[in-house]
């Protein structure tokens, strides 16, 4: 049919149409406020962050340790048996050098979001956070990193209680 049809519907507008006042439009802004309950598992996770600890959850049936913690194991649908403290160190699973903010502003110095596999969790199990105190050119997949925490008195029980992760080499025993 595309071969037979000469003209498809749909009319493209350009910025100029707006500048020239050719287009009528209605502008509105919505403000929505929420207070999210943290729930049992994430509540524990946040309380852990306030103490300077990253918590995971362990399923003894599947022999998996996941992070962030949760009440139910997705694989066997049984309750997670326990919340366990993990290390605050890990390994970069993947990263990006991002020159655009969430609201699409351009920035010169990139943010470095990463998935960090947390030591003590099962392989490939990590959290999303940012890297800092590192030359963007020197970031690599597999590099070992450690959490940089806010001072204890400033922590609020939030993921931002970890400022970022920085490169770290395990001391030789």
């Amino acid at each position, binding site marked *: *049919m*595309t071969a037979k049809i000469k003209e498809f519907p749909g009319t493209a507008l350009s910025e100029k149409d707006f500048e020239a006042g050719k287009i009528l439009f209605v502008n509105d802004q919505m403000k929505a406020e929420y207070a999210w309950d943290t729930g049992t598992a994430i509540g524990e996770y946040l309380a852990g962050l306030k103490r300077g600890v990253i918590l995971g959850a362990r399923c003894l049936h599947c022999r998996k340790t996941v992070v962030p913690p949760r009440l139910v194991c997705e694989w066997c649908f049984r309750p997670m048996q326990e919340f366990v403290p993990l290390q605050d160190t890990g390994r970069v699973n*993947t990263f*990006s050098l*991002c020159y655009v903010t969430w609201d699409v502003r351009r920035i010169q110095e990139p943010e470095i979001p990463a998935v960090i596999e947390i030591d003590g969790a099962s392989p490939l199990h990590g959290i999303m956070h940012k890297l800092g105190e590192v030359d963007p050119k020197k970031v690599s997949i597999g590099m070992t990193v450690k959490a940089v925490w806010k001072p204890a008195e400033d922590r609020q029980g939030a993921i931002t209680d970890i400022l970022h992760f920085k490169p770290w080499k395990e001391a030789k025993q």
Partner: protein
Amino acid sequence: MGMRKVAVVGAGMTKFVRRALETGKELSWQAASMALESCEMTLDDIQAVCMGTAPDAFDGVHMKAEYLSDGAGAWRKPYMRSYVGGGTGVFAPIQGWYHVASGLFDTCLVVCEEKMSSYFPHAQAAFLTIFDHTTERALEPNLLWIFALEMNRYMQTYGISKADIARIAVQNKRNAADHPCALLGEAEITVEDVLNSEVLAWPVQRLDVSPISDGAVAIVLAAEHVARRVTDKPVWIQGVGWALDTAYWTNRDLAYPRYVEVAARMAYEMAGIREPRKEIHIAEPYDPFDYKALHHLEGLLLADRGQAPQLVADGVTARDGAMPVCPSGGLLGVGNPIAAAGLMKVAELFWQLRGEAGARQVPGQPKRGLAQAWGDLMQVGTVVIVGTNP
């Protein structure tokens, strides 16, 4: 399975544009009426309507299905909206399929619409709310992050270069130059153009990404006894599949889309396909980002893991290759009005298998094609297989 046979008998679409004059309702009506006209049916012949459209946040309209219902021709009919993020455009025809296959309805109109331009300054910011509000959103994540993170992991795992990936962007944008509705068709684009485009979130650059767009697509589904009366070239839905992986996306293997494999295996089994690489003549994998087209070809079992870039380099995926991929031009070339973009892939297969794709026609009378989409928080896969045989 005790299911009735279902065919696609008509299709219509609007141009995909950066910002459309028409409202979402108007775009929906344009695509829907064009689909009905293409098979000489009217709304009176339609027994049920399925609507696919992505987040309400883009439009700032709650209950978007109701908002769009007049444009979709839904009034006083059984009407449902499905929404699985980017996977919606291939899920909506699956929903339409089971409406008809179940025996409940003989005809179903499937309409997918997206108007992303209403959100200011850029629809990207509306995506902030897909991240977990407590454990992720406080980091002010950008939608590009998850793609960049997944792309980097994919590249690293298999030793794939940026140039390897850029080739599929070039292929799709060139293919789109032949699509009358395309936003970004470029017959002359090169790999260097992609590699030299602005870095947004390394490894993602400007030309690795499909643009946000406005547009609508519609198809008409009919049960066998109706389909054979309506057209002598029905395109049969042979298999469907869909699957979801864990929403804890930082807890899974980012290098391989297992959810796509699960969905594909379901669809292959239903279609009686044992050797997909031989039996699928045209593939339309979801390509909002260039690496995703490759990633998905692997998940669909149409390429070995890490080997999809080689298929592109060898010309296998070209329009005249052994297994054409995205002959439409895909999301990278035609545009990415989310739900409409997925259904565009099904409409493309409809036109291709009927030999009506004009300048985009794949040679050699293709008999079977596969369309796939992907979405939610990077973990839903939706697959539809259509063919010229019931």
